[in-house]
């Protein structure tokens, strides 16, 4: 049972990562490690930048 819950949690995290749902949390983790001392973007700013970046290249196909 514990195993099943752990697996479900992993899958849920995978789904969140794949969809971009936890992108901001991951950014904060990265920011805390790599750019200590600077102010991170807010959630709203981060989402705006991500969206703009994602759609500035070929990201969808036929």
């Amino acid at each position, binding site marked *: 049972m514990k195993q099943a819950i752990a697996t479900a949690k992993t899958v849920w995290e*995978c*789904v*969140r*990562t*794949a*969809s*971009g*749902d936890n*992108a*901001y949390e*991951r*950014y904060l*983790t*990265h*920011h805390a490690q*790599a750019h200590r001392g600077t102010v991170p973007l807010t*959630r*709203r700013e*981060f*989402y*705006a*930048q*991500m*969206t*703009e*970046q*994602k*759609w*500035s*290249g*070929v*990201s*969808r*196909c*036929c």
Partner: protein
Amino acid sequence: MGRKIFGVVLAVIAAFAVGGIALQREEPINALWIVTAAVCIYLLGYRFYAAWITAKVLSVDVTRAAPAERLNNGRDFVPTHRWVVFGHHFAAIAGPGPLVGPTLAAQFGYLPGTLWILVGSVLGGCVQDMIILFLSMRRDGRSLGQMARDELGPIGGVAALIGTLMIMVILIAVLGLVVVNAMKHSPWATSTVAATIPIAIFIGFYLRRIRPGRVLEGTVIGVVLLVLSVWGGGLVAQSESLRGWFDHPGAPLALGVIVYGWCAAILPVWMLLAPRDYLSTFLKLGVVAMLAIAIVIMHPVLKMPAITQFADGTGPLFSGKIFPFVFITIACGAISGFHALVSSGTTPKLITNEPDVRLVGYGSMALESFVGIMAMIAATLLDPGVYFAINTGAGVVGAAAADAVQTISGWGFPVTVQQMQDLAKEMGESTLFARTGGAPSLAVGMASIFGTSFGRSLMSVWYHFAIMFEAVFILTTVDAGTRVGRFMVQDLMGQVWQPMLRTSWYPSILISSTIIVAGWGYFLYIGVIDPNGGINILWPLFGISNQMLACIALSVATGVLIKKGNLKHALVAFAPLAWLSFVTTVAAVQKIFSADPKLGFFAAANDLAAKLAAGSLPADRAAVAPQLIFNQHLDGWLTVFFTIVLWVVIGDMVRVAYRSIRGLPVPQGSEAAYIRSQLNAATGTVDGVGTPSEARA
């Protein structure tokens, strides 16, 4: 190694034997056999061929730091779990192409298309996607165009850029046509598709303002609204006062799609494109999974013959013999040049570990190809008479239902007016005759699969759900493609006039968007007024341009592999390149030079011009004839242009290969230097693949 090869040969023979036996006894074949054979072949290809390529040909190196690790910025370069990258990449490459292509190719019977989907993907498409992904990953995520320039020279680079722009225009036009044909005189489909626009905008505001970045929440709300819109569409279709608002012929609908595309290109992405994409990805993955399950539950018998008489080139959906046109028509389900653009875009920046390219590159394409197999099953489980009645344009079989069923029954595929009326009623449509483009027949097929597996009472809802699914899918591609096209036009015009390079400067956005939308809008409009349905012209043109792009990608791959020094290894890219360039060129030559007005562009133009001059055309067709004549000429010259671009790139590759073999100087390429990975080497997360690098520091 010998045992592995033996295993492969044995398994492939076994898989094909199953199909072969059913075929030779003239027995109808159950779809489950095809599904089984397909899954086996993908697994074999993945387990043996792809593993061999990654280990020996590409020499993936688990100790080498991927750009995601070296350039990690927490945004686009992020080391990501391979199954997540797989999901990302599959969502990016999977589009409406593998749904439409096999549906059209089913006019040759189920066998030719199925074989090419399997063989073409395992030996061609999957290999192309994986190698380009690998090359781009080794080059810090460089695009296909940049790699063509770095590895072959400026000619290859320019050709890749122009090829991409042209294919984008043709692709959007043909997809737009598919949607328009699905909505034509269908208040239910039109109102449902129209409702997806405000839903997407609402989700856009939700994700931007109300709950920024809560993607899953927004998606779930949006999908619930989309399903409600399918139900609401049914109410609209029944309401006497509302249905008139959504009951339109092709031309105004085409205009609607064109205006929509223009708005989508100039609006900020967060408002329409990004939310629509979340919804479409969710639907796409859900429907693909549901379809696979439902096919297994239903295990339908395929009613279409293995091979029909239309192999001789007289097919009603599109003209041309089985060779080369089955290869052109299947398109994305077997190999798609467009994938090379995605494989050299966002995906390589996410890969944590070099061996992951096998799962992400090869695996995603295998799954995409499986979507093509499912579309083929959905098309061929219909009564062939029904399939042809839905997919054949009025220009071919006549506008009156009685004429159409008589012609189609005369081909040996019996169908009655009553049968078509009952089917249309069951699907909640006024008619299903001459609904060309593939979407309606696919939706009927999907509705029968879902209906049989999950409840038959809701057939009309399933049908319109399938239409909505295809439309959401397609409109995402229209939006995204128009936007990419816009950037390219801005880039090209920026070479002449600097201010155009400012991608967010409004005049530049307006000018470039108008140019790109006018480009595809023109082809879409002509397709809509074409009495033969337009698809028969546009789809082959799309197939040819997409394969041309694949040839460019494979040329880059071949060039790089030859420069690595092992000619035998270069065959993995050269063999599909040789076959594809041969097939594409034969098809292009036929489209250019054939004297048959059904096949050749110029022949069709001359034929129509002669009829117009002789006054033998009915008034309505005479009115549009000059436009159609001009368009046939344009299509002919485009094909000439595609063929020239194709052979220029191949020539450039051969030049580089020759110089490399003779030891003459060649472009050095842009592979990043070896840096030892801290992520993978430390943990030692390897699954048997991956060789240590020669250049260990």
